[in-house]
């Protein structure tokens, strides 16, 4: 069973529907016991980092997510949920994340050229880092096993993960290469929304569910 962490941010309807559409058994929960029993955990999120981080800390849900991930349970953070996996974010001040993946979340402002609009909204291409030797499918992050370089996914964000190059499994080009996905062992993150990325997105969710 896949558990979507419900901590009061954002709309989980589409995420739940997309998981059902690929045949996954899914539950939306804010209950520590359910998260502990789940096979896999998805940490969603929209909105501002500080608000989401503090809501996740209510009822100590962050501790459950951290301990489950440290025990090796597959965890996927999506969009702001991905950003929460890192050490810290500089969105409206400096805020601590879950510290599951080394790195920090910074603004695109001043990083992408001025003529690029912020937020970065729309469909953009996935680029797999050369070092991972994407010619060989086995070297790709397992969540991308049925996705090709150049496939498009849907992004909506103004901040992105930086100082985490060794964990980057996909980038996207927006005047600058931005982190699109990361992986550290059993912990995965997607900056884009797989639940809004058509067939490519469903295939990414499916690969995560069948880990």
């Amino acid at each position: 069973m896949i558990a979507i962490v419900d901590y009061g941010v954002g709309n989980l309807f589409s995420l739940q529907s997309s998981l059902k559409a690929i045949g996954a058994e899914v539950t939306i929960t804010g209950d520590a016991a359910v998260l502990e029993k789940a096979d896999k955990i998805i940490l969603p999120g929209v909105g501002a980092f500080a608000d989401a981080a503090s809501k996740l800390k209510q009822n100590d849900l962050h501790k459950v997510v951290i301990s489950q991930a440290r025990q090796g349970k597959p965890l996927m953070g999506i969009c702001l949920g991905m950003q929460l996996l890192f050490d810290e974010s500089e969105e409206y001040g400096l805020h601590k994340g879950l510290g599951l993946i080394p790195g920090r979340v910074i603004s695109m402002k001043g990083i992408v050229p001025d003529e690029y609009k912020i937020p970065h909204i729309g469909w953009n291409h996935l680029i797999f880092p050369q070092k991972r030797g994407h010619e060989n499918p086995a070297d790709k992050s397992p969540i991308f096993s049925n996705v090709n370089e150049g496939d498009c996914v849907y992004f909506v964000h103004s901040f992105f993960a930086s100082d985490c190059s060794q964990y980057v499994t996909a980038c996207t080009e927006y005047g600058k290469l931005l982190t699109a996905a990361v992986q550290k062992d059993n912990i995965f993150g997607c900056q884009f929304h797989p639940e809004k990325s058509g067939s490519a997105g469903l295939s990414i969710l499916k690969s995560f569910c069948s880990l």
Partner: protein
Amino acid sequence: MITKRIIPCLDVKNGRVVKGVNFQGLSDVSSPVELAKYYSDNGADELVFYDITASAEGRALFTDILTQVASTIFIPLTVGGGINTVEDFDRVLKCGADKVSVNSGAIKNPSLISAAAEKYGSQCVVLSVDAKRVDGHYCVFAKGGRENTGMDAIQWIKKGIELGAGEIVLNSIDTDGVKKGFDLEMLRAVCDISPVPVIASGGAGSADDFIKLFKTIPEVDAGLAASIFHFGEVKIPQLKEKLKENNINVR
């Protein structure tokens, strides 16, 4: 590099798509769910649903339909029509909409934009503007283009963005329905002042009109159309092929 978006727009009344549709292979051409699936399978990057019902029963049907669409297709959905309050945002977002488009409701009460942006984020709030040339000015029209508000469209768009609108749909009443191309002049004026994405609407009659749009105004992020897609005059897969041949980046 981010791609240019192609967005079909569907008008829904009492739970059915109006403005007849002409597709082969669809068993029910007025079913929003079937049509949405057709477009999603055939290269649409996003869908816009306008609720043009006035009755409460119609509203309830619309949210039912939206729920079904959002459980079936997995691309971004924008919903507009009859959005006057933050509760209206809440109603459609709970059914699976990703963005909500405001028009007359924001003209009546501009603070609707800021209230919604604060609660759901700017990325969720689309300001849709119907504009028409009157005495050499771009004027904002309300109530589906029937009522001249006297407001200057460029000033209104600036204000909307300041209040927190995350995206602009510019529908030119002058070119709408004429099928001779988008209103490039008006779009140029809006793109010059907009730091947020701009979606062009009104006037598309052929694939060439989209090529001209994105070539002439590279800042435009998306092209929206209704009947030319519904009647199969322009098919999205072929449109995208043509855009690619013209070095316009599409999905």
